[in-house]
Protein backbone atom coordinates (compact mmCIF):
# COMPACT_ATOMS: atom_id res chain seq x y z
CA UNK A 1 0.00 0.00 0.00
CA UNK A 2 2.65 2.51 1.01
CA UNK A 3 4.73 1.59 -2.02
CA UNK A 4 1.86 2.48 -4.29
CA UNK A 5 1.34 5.78 -2.53
CA UNK A 6 5.00 6.63 -2.86
CA UNK A 7 4.89 6.00 -6.58
CA UNK A 8 1.82 8.23 -6.84
CA UNK A 9 3.53 10.97 -4.89
CA UNK A 10 6.74 10.70 -6.86
CA UNK A 11 10.31 10.41 -5.61
CA UNK A 12 11.10 12.09 -2.33
CA UNK A 13 13.12 15.28 -2.79
CA UNK A 14 16.15 13.62 -1.22
CA UNK A 15 16.79 11.84 -4.51
CA UNK A 16 17.62 15.11 -6.23
CA UNK A 17 19.78 16.23 -3.35
CA UNK A 18 21.98 13.15 -3.47
CA UNK A 19 22.54 13.66 -7.16
CA UNK A 20 23.73 17.19 -6.45
CA UNK A 21 26.14 16.09 -3.71
CA UNK A 22 29.84 16.88 -4.26
CA UNK A 23 31.99 14.34 -6.05
CA UNK A 24 34.49 13.76 -3.21
CA UNK A 25 33.73 10.45 -1.57
CA UNK A 26 31.59 11.04 1.51
CA UNK A 27 32.43 9.67 4.98
CA UNK A 28 28.96 8.24 5.39
CA UNK A 29 26.97 7.02 2.45
CA UNK A 30 23.38 5.86 2.70
CA UNK A 31 21.71 4.55 -0.42
CA UNK A 32 18.11 3.39 -0.65
CA UNK A 33 17.96 2.41 3.00
CA UNK A 34 14.87 0.59 4.13
CA UNK A 35 14.04 -0.82 7.55
CA UNK A 36 11.04 -3.00 8.23
CA UNK A 37 9.99 -4.34 11.61
CA UNK A 38 7.72 -7.21 12.34
CA UNK A 39 5.33 -6.38 15.17
CA UNK A 40 4.11 -8.99 17.63
CA UNK A 41 0.93 -9.54 15.69
CA UNK A 42 3.06 -10.37 12.65
CA UNK A 43 2.28 -7.11 10.89
CA UNK A 44 5.18 -5.57 8.97
CA UNK A 45 5.86 -1.93 9.75
CA UNK A 46 8.14 0.12 7.54
CA UNK A 47 10.13 2.43 9.78
CA UNK A 48 12.45 3.83 7.11
CA UNK A 49 11.99 3.85 3.40
CA UNK A 50 14.01 5.15 0.50
CA UNK A 51 16.49 7.04 2.68
CA UNK A 52 19.48 8.37 0.77
CA UNK A 53 22.10 10.60 2.31
CA UNK A 54 25.75 11.54 1.92
CA UNK A 55 27.64 13.02 4.82
CA UNK A 56 31.08 14.58 4.47
CA UNK A 57 33.82 14.36 7.07
CA UNK A 58 33.61 17.10 9.78
CA UNK A 59 30.03 17.90 8.89
CA UNK A 60 27.48 18.59 11.60
CA UNK A 61 24.21 17.06 10.50
CA UNK A 62 20.99 17.67 12.43
CA UNK A 63 18.07 15.33 11.91
CA UNK A 64 14.59 16.55 12.81
CA UNK A 65 11.27 14.85 12.45
CA UNK A 66 8.11 14.08 14.34
CA UNK A 67 8.19 11.20 16.77
CA UNK A 68 7.88 7.87 15.03
CA UNK A 69 9.63 9.07 11.87
CA UNK A 70 12.39 6.51 12.32
CA UNK A 71 15.16 8.99 13.14
CA UNK A 72 16.31 6.90 16.10
CA UNK A 73 16.18 3.78 13.91
CA UNK A 74 18.39 5.54 11.38
CA UNK A 75 20.90 6.35 14.10
CA UNK A 76 20.80 2.80 15.48
CA UNK A 77 21.56 1.42 12.04
CA UNK A 78 24.50 3.81 11.69
CA UNK A 79 25.68 2.74 15.16
CA UNK A 80 25.54 -0.91 14.10
CA UNK A 81 22.94 -1.70 16.76
CA UNK A 82 20.42 -2.67 14.12
CA UNK A 83 20.63 -4.04 10.59
CA UNK A 84 19.05 -2.43 7.55
CA UNK A 85 16.39 -4.51 5.80
CA UNK A 86 17.70 -3.42 2.44
CA UNK A 87 19.91 -0.73 0.96
CA UNK A 88 23.48 0.30 1.61
CA UNK A 89 25.05 2.02 4.62
CA UNK A 90 28.72 2.70 4.18
CA UNK A 91 31.08 4.30 6.62
CA UNK A 92 34.51 5.33 5.33
CA UNK A 93 33.89 3.09 2.35
CA UNK A 94 33.08 -0.04 4.39
CA UNK A 95 29.55 -1.27 4.79
CA UNK A 96 28.29 -1.06 8.37
CA UNK A 97 27.49 -4.49 9.84
CA UNK A 98 27.96 -3.89 13.56
CA UNK A 99 29.36 -1.46 16.12
CA UNK A 100 32.56 0.20 14.88
CA UNK A 101 35.49 1.52 16.89
CA UNK A 102 35.43 4.84 15.01
CA UNK A 103 31.77 5.53 15.84
CA UNK A 104 30.57 6.62 19.29
CA UNK A 105 27.01 7.05 20.43
CA UNK A 106 25.52 9.48 22.94
CA UNK A 107 22.09 8.23 23.96
CA UNK A 108 19.01 10.10 25.08
CA UNK A 109 19.69 8.90 28.62
CA UNK A 110 23.22 9.36 29.93
CA UNK A 111 23.39 5.54 30.48
CA UNK A 112 26.24 5.92 32.95
CA UNK A 113 27.04 2.93 35.14
CA UNK A 114 25.77 4.05 38.57
CA UNK A 115 28.24 1.90 40.52
CA UNK A 116 31.28 3.43 38.80
CA UNK A 117 32.80 6.84 39.43
CA UNK A 118 32.70 9.52 36.74
CA UNK A 119 36.33 8.72 35.91
CA UNK A 120 35.68 4.98 35.57
CA UNK A 121 32.63 5.70 33.43
CA UNK A 122 34.63 7.90 31.08
CA UNK A 123 37.36 5.25 30.89
CA UNK A 124 34.87 2.48 30.02
CA UNK A 125 35.40 2.45 26.23
CA UNK A 126 39.19 2.12 26.59
CA UNK A 127 38.92 -0.37 29.48
CA UNK A 128 36.80 -2.56 27.21
CA UNK A 129 39.71 -2.54 24.75
CA UNK A 130 42.10 -3.52 27.56
CA UNK A 131 43.82 -0.12 27.64
CA UNK A 132 44.47 0.98 31.21
CA UNK A 133 47.44 3.18 30.35
CA UNK A 134 48.32 6.43 32.05
CA UNK A 135 47.94 8.15 28.70
CA UNK A 136 44.30 7.08 28.54
CA UNK A 137 43.71 8.32 32.09
CA UNK A 138 45.34 11.62 31.16
CA UNK A 139 43.05 11.93 28.14
CA UNK A 140 40.01 11.24 30.33
CA UNK A 141 41.14 13.94 32.75
CA UNK A 142 41.66 16.37 29.88
CA UNK A 143 38.18 15.67 28.52
CA UNK A 144 36.59 16.09 31.95
CA UNK A 145 38.44 19.35 32.47
CA UNK A 146 37.35 20.52 29.02
CA UNK A 147 33.74 19.84 29.98
CA UNK A 148 34.08 21.61 33.33
CA UNK A 149 33.93 18.37 35.31
CA UNK A 150 37.49 18.41 36.66
CA UNK A 151 36.40 18.28 40.29
CA UNK A 152 33.84 15.56 39.75
CA UNK A 153 36.09 12.74 38.52
CA UNK A 154 35.74 10.78 41.75
CA UNK A 155 32.01 11.44 42.22
CA UNK A 156 29.30 8.94 41.37
CA UNK A 157 26.64 9.64 38.70
CA UNK A 158 23.85 9.98 41.29
CA UNK A 159 25.73 12.92 42.81
CA UNK A 160 25.52 14.82 39.50
CA UNK A 161 22.74 16.82 37.86
CA UNK A 162 21.14 15.60 34.61
CA UNK A 163 23.16 18.05 32.51
CA UNK A 164 26.40 16.99 34.16
CA UNK A 165 25.58 13.32 33.64
CA UNK A 166 25.04 13.94 29.94
CA UNK A 167 28.36 15.82 29.79
CA UNK A 168 30.07 12.77 31.32
CA UNK A 169 28.40 10.60 28.71
CA UNK A 170 29.76 12.90 25.97
CA UNK A 171 33.25 12.62 27.49
CA UNK A 172 32.87 8.85 27.43
CA UNK A 173 31.85 8.94 23.77
CA UNK A 174 34.87 11.12 22.91
CA UNK A 175 37.22 8.94 24.95
CA UNK A 176 38.11 6.59 22.12
CA UNK A 177 38.53 9.48 19.71
CA UNK A 178 35.85 8.46 17.20
CA UNK A 179 35.58 9.94 13.71
CA UNK A 180 31.80 9.98 13.99
CA UNK A 181 29.67 11.02 16.93
CA UNK A 182 26.06 9.88 16.82
CA UNK A 183 23.76 11.74 19.20
CA UNK A 184 20.18 10.64 19.82
CA UNK A 185 18.28 13.57 21.36
CA UNK A 186 21.00 13.85 23.99
CA UNK A 187 19.55 16.99 25.56
CA UNK A 188 15.89 16.03 25.29
CA UNK A 189 15.56 15.32 29.00
CA UNK A 190 17.20 18.58 30.12
CA UNK A 191 15.51 21.84 31.05
CA UNK A 192 15.61 24.68 28.51
CA UNK A 193 18.43 26.65 30.15
CA UNK A 194 20.72 23.65 30.57
CA UNK A 195 19.88 22.60 27.06
CA UNK A 196 21.04 25.91 25.58
CA UNK A 197 24.24 25.77 27.60
CA UNK A 198 24.83 22.22 26.34
CA UNK A 199 24.28 23.35 22.74
CA UNK A 200 27.00 25.97 23.09
CA UNK A 201 29.27 23.39 24.71
CA UNK A 202 28.64 20.89 21.93
CA UNK A 203 29.61 23.46 19.27
CA UNK A 204 32.82 24.09 21.20
CA UNK A 205 33.60 20.34 21.21
CA UNK A 206 32.79 20.03 17.54
CA UNK A 207 35.19 22.86 16.69
CA UNK A 208 37.89 21.51 19.02
CA UNK A 209 37.68 17.80 18.23
CA UNK A 210 36.70 18.05 14.53
CA UNK A 211 34.25 15.18 14.64
CA UNK A 212 31.54 14.35 12.18
CA UNK A 213 28.34 14.68 14.17
CA UNK A 214 24.89 13.33 13.45
CA UNK A 215 22.54 14.94 15.91
CA UNK A 216 18.97 13.83 16.28
CA UNK A 217 16.49 16.21 17.87
CA UNK A 218 12.85 17.13 17.77
CA UNK A 219 13.63 20.79 18.36
CA UNK A 220 13.80 22.78 15.12
CA UNK A 221 15.76 25.73 16.62
CA UNK A 222 18.29 23.31 18.11
CA UNK A 223 18.70 21.59 14.74
CA UNK A 224 19.27 24.90 12.93
CA UNK A 225 21.57 26.34 15.59
CA UNK A 226 23.90 23.34 15.53
CA UNK A 227 23.75 21.90 12.04
CA UNK A 228 25.56 22.59 8.78
CA UNK A 229 22.62 20.83 7.20
CA UNK A 230 19.26 19.85 8.64
CA UNK A 231 17.70 16.61 7.46
CA UNK A 232 13.93 16.94 7.74
CA UNK A 233 12.19 13.58 8.01
CA UNK A 234 8.57 12.69 7.43
CA UNK A 235 6.49 10.36 9.61
CA UNK A 236 5.94 6.66 8.89
CA UNK A 237 7.42 5.37 6.81
CA UNK A 238 10.37 7.62 7.63
CA UNK A 239 11.70 9.34 4.53
CA UNK A 240 13.92 12.35 3.99
CA UNK A 241 11.50 15.09 2.99
CA UNK A 242 14.06 17.82 2.61
CA UNK A 243 17.66 18.68 3.32
CA UNK A 244 18.08 22.29 4.41
CA UNK A 245 21.48 23.98 4.16
CA UNK A 246 22.05 26.22 7.15
CA UNK A 247 23.90 29.16 5.58
CA UNK A 248 24.53 30.95 8.88
CA UNK A 249 28.12 31.81 9.62
CA UNK A 250 30.01 30.19 12.45
CA UNK A 251 30.83 30.67 15.25
CA UNK A 252 27.19 30.71 16.25
CA UNK A 253 25.89 31.52 19.69
CA UNK A 254 22.58 32.08 21.41
CA UNK A 255 22.28 35.50 19.71
CA UNK A 256 22.26 33.65 16.40
CA UNK A 257 18.81 32.43 17.35
CA UNK A 258 17.40 35.95 17.17
CA UNK A 259 18.83 36.69 13.69
CA UNK A 260 16.31 36.98 10.82
CA UNK A 261 17.94 34.21 8.75
CA UNK A 262 17.63 31.82 11.71
CA UNK A 263 13.94 32.60 11.96
CA UNK A 264 13.49 32.12 8.21
CA UNK A 265 15.13 28.69 8.25
CA UNK A 266 13.10 27.54 11.26
CA UNK A 267 9.95 28.80 9.59
CA UNK A 268 10.83 26.99 6.38
CA UNK A 269 11.36 23.69 8.22
CA UNK A 270 8.06 24.16 9.99
CA UNK A 271 6.38 24.61 6.61
CA UNK A 272 7.90 21.33 5.45
CA UNK A 273 6.46 19.66 8.56
CA UNK A 274 3.11 21.34 7.95
CA UNK A 275 2.99 20.18 4.34
CA UNK A 276 3.76 16.63 5.45
CA UNK A 277 1.08 16.51 8.09
CA UNK A 278 -1.48 18.17 5.80
CA UNK A 279 -0.74 15.49 3.25
CA UNK A 280 -1.18 12.91 5.94
CA UNK A 281 -4.62 14.29 6.64
CA UNK A 282 -5.76 14.34 3.03
CA UNK A 283 -4.64 10.73 2.70
Amino acid at each position, binding site marked *: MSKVLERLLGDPPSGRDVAAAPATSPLIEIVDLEKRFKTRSGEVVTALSNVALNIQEHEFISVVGPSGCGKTTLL*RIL*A*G*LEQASSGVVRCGGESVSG*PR*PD*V*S*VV*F*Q*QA*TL*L*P*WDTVMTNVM*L*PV*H*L*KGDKSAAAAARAERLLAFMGLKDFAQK*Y*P*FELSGGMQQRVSICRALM*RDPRILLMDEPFGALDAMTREAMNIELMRIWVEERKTVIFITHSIPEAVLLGDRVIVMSPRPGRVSEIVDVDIERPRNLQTMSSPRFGELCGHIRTVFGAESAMGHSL
Partner: protein
Amino acid sequence: MTTSANTPLFHRLQVLLFAVVILAVWEGACRVLHISSLILPTPSEIAGKLVSLSVSGVIWPHLWATLVEIFSGFLLGVGAGLVSGALVSLVPVVERLVYPYLVALQTLPKVAIAPLFIIWFGYGLFSKVVVTALVCFFPILVSVVAGFHATDKDQLDMMKAFGATKWQTLVRLRIPSALVLIFAGLEIAAVLAVIGAIVGEFVGAQVGLGYLIVTLNFNLDVPGVFAVLIYLSMIGLILHGAMRFAARRYIFWIRRSDAAVMV
Protein backbone atom coordinates in the same frame (compact mmCIF):
# COMPACT_ATOMS: atom_id res chain seq x y z
CA MET B 1 21.35 7.88 52.25
CA THR B 2 21.17 6.98 55.93
CA THR B 3 17.87 8.45 56.96
CA SER B 4 18.02 7.06 60.50
CA ALA B 5 21.28 8.89 61.22
CA ASN B 6 19.77 12.19 60.08
CA THR B 7 16.66 11.78 62.20
CA PRO B 8 16.78 13.94 65.31
CA LEU B 9 17.49 12.16 68.58
CA PHE B 10 14.09 13.34 69.73
CA HIS B 11 12.32 11.05 67.26
CA ARG B 12 14.25 8.05 68.49
CA LEU B 13 13.39 8.87 72.06
CA GLN B 14 9.75 9.08 71.04
CA VAL B 15 9.90 5.57 69.59
CA LEU B 16 11.55 4.29 72.78
CA LEU B 17 8.99 6.06 74.94
CA PHE B 18 6.19 4.48 72.92
CA ALA B 19 7.58 1.01 73.72
CA VAL B 20 7.79 1.87 77.42
CA VAL B 21 4.15 3.01 77.40
CA ILE B 22 2.99 -0.18 75.65
CA LEU B 23 4.90 -2.36 78.15
CA ALA B 24 3.51 -0.40 81.07
CA VAL B 25 -0.08 -0.77 79.82
CA TRP B 26 0.52 -4.49 79.28
CA GLU B 27 1.96 -4.94 82.76
CA GLY B 28 -0.81 -2.88 84.36
CA ALA B 29 -3.61 -4.62 82.46
CA CYS B 30 -2.33 -8.09 83.44
CA ARG B 31 -2.15 -7.11 87.11
CA VAL B 32 -5.44 -5.22 87.34
CA LEU B 33 -7.43 -7.78 85.34
CA HIS B 34 -5.69 -10.73 87.08
CA ILE B 35 -4.81 -12.38 83.79
CA SER B 36 -3.17 -15.73 84.40
CA SER B 37 0.45 -15.96 83.32
CA LEU B 38 -0.57 -19.23 81.63
CA ILE B 39 -2.40 -17.08 79.10
CA LEU B 40 -0.48 -13.82 78.98
CA PRO B 41 2.53 -13.33 81.26
CA THR B 42 3.49 -9.81 82.32
CA PRO B 43 6.58 -8.17 80.77
CA SER B 44 8.33 -8.39 84.14
CA GLU B 45 7.76 -12.15 84.35
CA ILE B 46 9.11 -12.55 80.83
CA ALA B 47 12.14 -10.43 81.67
CA GLY B 48 12.77 -12.51 84.78
CA LYS B 49 12.56 -15.70 82.75
CA LEU B 50 14.84 -14.25 80.11
CA VAL B 51 17.49 -13.56 82.76
CA SER B 52 17.12 -16.93 84.50
CA LEU B 53 17.29 -18.88 81.21
CA SER B 54 20.48 -17.04 80.29
CA VAL B 55 22.14 -17.08 83.73
CA SER B 56 21.40 -20.76 84.40
CA GLY B 57 22.91 -21.55 81.00
CA VAL B 58 19.88 -23.57 79.92
CA ILE B 59 19.46 -21.53 76.75
CA TRP B 60 23.01 -21.70 75.35
CA PRO B 61 23.12 -25.18 73.76
CA HIS B 62 19.72 -24.51 72.18
CA LEU B 63 20.73 -21.08 70.95
CA TRP B 64 23.95 -22.45 69.52
CA ALA B 65 22.22 -25.30 67.69
CA THR B 66 19.65 -22.99 66.15
CA LEU B 67 22.29 -20.45 65.13
CA VAL B 68 24.31 -23.18 63.43
CA GLU B 69 21.20 -24.34 61.56
CA ILE B 70 20.29 -20.82 60.53
CA PHE B 71 23.75 -19.87 59.31
CA SER B 72 24.60 -23.13 57.53
CA GLY B 73 21.14 -23.31 55.98
CA PHE B 74 21.28 -19.67 54.91
CA LEU B 75 24.72 -20.03 53.33
CA LEU B 76 23.79 -23.29 51.62
CA GLY B 77 20.46 -21.95 50.32
CA VAL B 78 21.93 -18.64 49.18
CA GLY B 79 24.87 -20.38 47.49
CA ALA B 80 22.60 -22.80 45.66
CA GLY B 81 20.19 -19.98 44.79
CA LEU B 82 22.96 -17.79 43.35
CA VAL B 83 24.40 -20.62 41.26
CA SER B 84 21.08 -21.86 39.91
CA GLY B 85 19.82 -18.31 39.37
CA ALA B 86 22.93 -17.53 37.33
CA LEU B 87 22.55 -20.76 35.34
CA VAL B 88 18.87 -20.09 34.62
CA SER B 89 19.59 -16.50 33.59
CA LEU B 90 22.68 -17.07 31.51
CA VAL B 91 22.24 -20.54 29.99
CA PRO B 92 19.14 -20.55 27.77
CA VAL B 93 18.84 -24.36 27.82
CA VAL B 94 18.63 -24.42 31.59
CA GLU B 95 16.03 -21.67 31.58
CA ARG B 96 13.91 -23.55 29.07
CA LEU B 97 14.17 -26.99 30.71
CA VAL B 98 14.53 -26.37 34.42
CA TYR B 99 12.98 -23.02 35.28
CA PRO B 100 9.31 -24.02 34.79
CA TYR B 101 9.82 -26.88 37.27
CA LEU B 102 11.58 -24.64 39.75
CA VAL B 103 8.67 -22.21 39.59
CA ALA B 104 6.21 -25.05 40.05
CA LEU B 105 8.20 -26.30 43.03
CA GLN B 106 8.17 -22.81 44.50
CA THR B 107 4.40 -22.90 44.90
CA LEU B 108 4.80 -25.85 47.24
CA PRO B 109 4.82 -24.81 50.89
CA LYS B 110 8.38 -25.77 51.78
CA VAL B 111 7.63 -26.37 55.44
CA ALA B 112 5.21 -29.12 54.41
CA ILE B 113 8.21 -31.14 53.22
CA ALA B 114 9.95 -30.82 56.57
CA PRO B 115 8.64 -34.17 57.94
CA LEU B 116 10.11 -35.91 54.89
CA PHE B 117 13.49 -34.42 55.62
CA ILE B 118 13.37 -35.89 59.10
CA ILE B 119 12.92 -39.31 57.50
CA TRP B 120 15.65 -38.73 54.93
CA PHE B 121 18.24 -36.90 57.01
CA GLY B 122 17.42 -37.93 60.59
CA TYR B 123 16.66 -36.04 63.79
CA GLY B 124 20.01 -34.28 63.90
CA LEU B 125 21.16 -30.86 62.76
CA PHE B 126 21.39 -31.72 59.11
CA SER B 127 17.66 -32.10 58.42
CA LYS B 128 17.08 -28.57 59.85
CA VAL B 129 19.92 -27.18 57.76
CA VAL B 130 18.26 -28.64 54.66
CA VAL B 131 14.83 -27.16 55.49
CA THR B 132 16.45 -23.78 56.14
CA ALA B 133 18.43 -23.96 52.91
CA LEU B 134 15.31 -24.83 50.96
CA VAL B 135 13.27 -21.88 52.23
CA CYS B 136 16.22 -19.54 51.55
CA PHE B 137 16.83 -20.96 48.09
CA PHE B 138 13.73 -19.71 46.30
CA PRO B 139 13.75 -16.00 47.10
CA ILE B 140 17.41 -15.91 46.05
CA LEU B 141 16.76 -17.83 42.84
CA VAL B 142 13.85 -15.59 41.91
CA SER B 143 15.73 -12.39 42.73
CA VAL B 144 18.78 -13.45 40.72
CA VAL B 145 16.63 -14.27 37.69
CA ALA B 146 14.63 -11.06 38.07
CA GLY B 147 17.88 -9.14 38.64
CA PHE B 148 19.44 -10.33 35.40
CA HIS B 149 16.23 -9.64 33.51
CA ALA B 150 16.15 -6.12 34.89
CA THR B 151 19.30 -5.02 33.06
CA ASP B 152 18.59 -1.66 31.47
CA LYS B 153 18.08 -1.97 27.68
CA ASP B 154 19.73 1.37 26.96
CA GLN B 155 22.78 0.38 28.97
CA LEU B 156 22.98 -2.94 27.08
CA ASP B 157 22.90 -0.94 23.83
CA MET B 158 25.58 1.35 25.21
CA MET B 159 27.86 -1.59 26.04
CA LYS B 160 27.25 -3.08 22.61
CA ALA B 161 27.95 0.22 20.85
CA PHE B 162 31.28 0.42 22.66
CA GLY B 163 32.12 -3.06 21.41
CA ALA B 164 31.90 -4.87 24.76
CA THR B 165 32.15 -8.66 24.66
CA LYS B 166 29.48 -10.82 26.31
CA TRP B 167 31.78 -11.46 29.24
CA GLN B 168 32.57 -7.75 29.67
CA THR B 169 28.87 -6.91 29.56
CA LEU B 170 28.22 -9.53 32.23
CA VAL B 171 30.93 -8.31 34.59
CA ARG B 172 30.67 -4.56 34.05
CA LEU B 173 26.89 -4.27 33.66
CA ARG B 174 24.66 -7.29 34.23
CA ILE B 175 26.04 -8.56 37.54
CA PRO B 176 26.22 -5.14 39.23
CA SER B 177 22.68 -4.26 38.14
CA ALA B 178 21.40 -7.67 39.30
CA LEU B 179 22.84 -6.96 42.78
CA VAL B 180 20.00 -4.58 43.61
CA LEU B 181 17.35 -7.28 43.48
CA ILE B 182 19.69 -9.94 44.85
CA PHE B 183 20.09 -7.90 48.03
CA ALA B 184 16.32 -7.58 48.32
CA GLY B 185 16.23 -11.41 48.05
CA LEU B 186 18.92 -11.73 50.71
CA GLU B 187 16.89 -9.65 53.15
CA ILE B 188 13.90 -11.92 52.64
CA ALA B 189 16.03 -15.06 52.91
CA ALA B 190 17.58 -13.86 56.18
CA VAL B 191 14.15 -13.69 57.80
CA LEU B 192 12.99 -16.95 56.24
CA ALA B 193 16.12 -18.74 57.51
CA VAL B 194 14.92 -18.30 61.11
CA ILE B 195 11.50 -19.67 60.19
CA GLY B 196 13.05 -22.63 58.39
CA ALA B 197 15.23 -23.64 61.33
CA ILE B 198 12.37 -23.35 63.85
CA VAL B 199 9.91 -25.29 61.70
CA GLY B 200 12.53 -27.98 61.22
CA GLU B 201 12.94 -28.24 64.99
CA PHE B 202 9.17 -28.28 65.56
CA VAL B 203 8.89 -31.36 63.40
CA GLY B 204 11.44 -33.27 65.36
CA ALA B 205 14.59 -32.37 67.27
CA GLN B 206 16.47 -32.93 70.52
CA VAL B 207 17.98 -29.46 70.76
CA GLY B 208 17.39 -25.93 69.50
CA LEU B 209 15.22 -22.94 70.28
CA GLY B 210 12.26 -24.47 68.41
CA TYR B 211 12.61 -27.62 70.46
CA LEU B 212 12.85 -25.49 73.62
CA ILE B 213 9.62 -23.67 72.73
CA VAL B 214 7.79 -26.97 72.25
CA THR B 215 9.13 -28.29 75.59
CA LEU B 216 8.34 -25.12 77.55
CA ASN B 217 4.90 -24.99 75.97
CA PHE B 218 4.29 -28.58 76.99
CA ASN B 219 5.18 -27.66 80.58
CA LEU B 220 2.85 -24.66 80.40
CA ASP B 221 5.84 -22.37 80.98
CA VAL B 222 4.37 -19.51 78.94
CA PRO B 223 6.78 -16.82 80.22
CA GLY B 224 9.59 -19.15 79.11
CA VAL B 225 8.07 -19.40 75.62
CA PHE B 226 7.92 -15.60 75.41
CA ALA B 227 11.55 -15.38 76.53
CA VAL B 228 12.65 -17.72 73.73
CA LEU B 229 10.56 -15.71 71.26
CA ILE B 230 12.56 -12.64 72.26
CA TYR B 231 15.77 -14.51 71.49
CA LEU B 232 14.37 -15.52 68.10
CA SER B 233 13.31 -12.02 67.18
CA MET B 234 16.77 -10.76 68.19
CA ILE B 235 18.36 -13.27 65.81
CA GLY B 236 16.00 -12.19 63.03
CA LEU B 237 16.66 -8.50 63.64
CA ILE B 238 20.43 -8.95 63.67
CA LEU B 239 20.40 -11.00 60.47
CA HIS B 240 18.12 -8.56 58.72
CA GLY B 241 20.22 -5.64 59.96
CA ALA B 242 23.38 -7.32 58.66
CA MET B 243 21.79 -7.69 55.22
CA ARG B 244 20.69 -4.04 55.30
CA PHE B 245 24.19 -2.99 56.24
CA ALA B 246 25.71 -5.05 53.44
CA ALA B 247 23.18 -3.67 50.96
CA ARG B 248 23.96 -0.10 51.91
CA ARG B 249 27.62 -0.83 51.42
CA TYR B 250 27.50 -2.81 48.19
CA ILE B 251 24.59 -1.17 46.39
CA PHE B 252 25.30 2.31 47.64
CA TRP B 253 23.98 3.92 44.46
CA ILE B 254 20.44 2.92 45.30
CA ARG B 255 18.66 5.26 47.64
CA ARG B 256 17.04 3.38 50.48
CA SER B 257 13.58 4.53 49.51
CA ASP B 258 14.07 3.16 45.99
CA ALA B 259 15.17 -0.30 47.07
CA ALA B 260 12.59 -3.00 46.49
CA VAL B 261 12.32 -4.34 49.99
CA MET B 262 9.29 -6.38 50.83
CA VAL B 263 9.91 -7.78 54.29
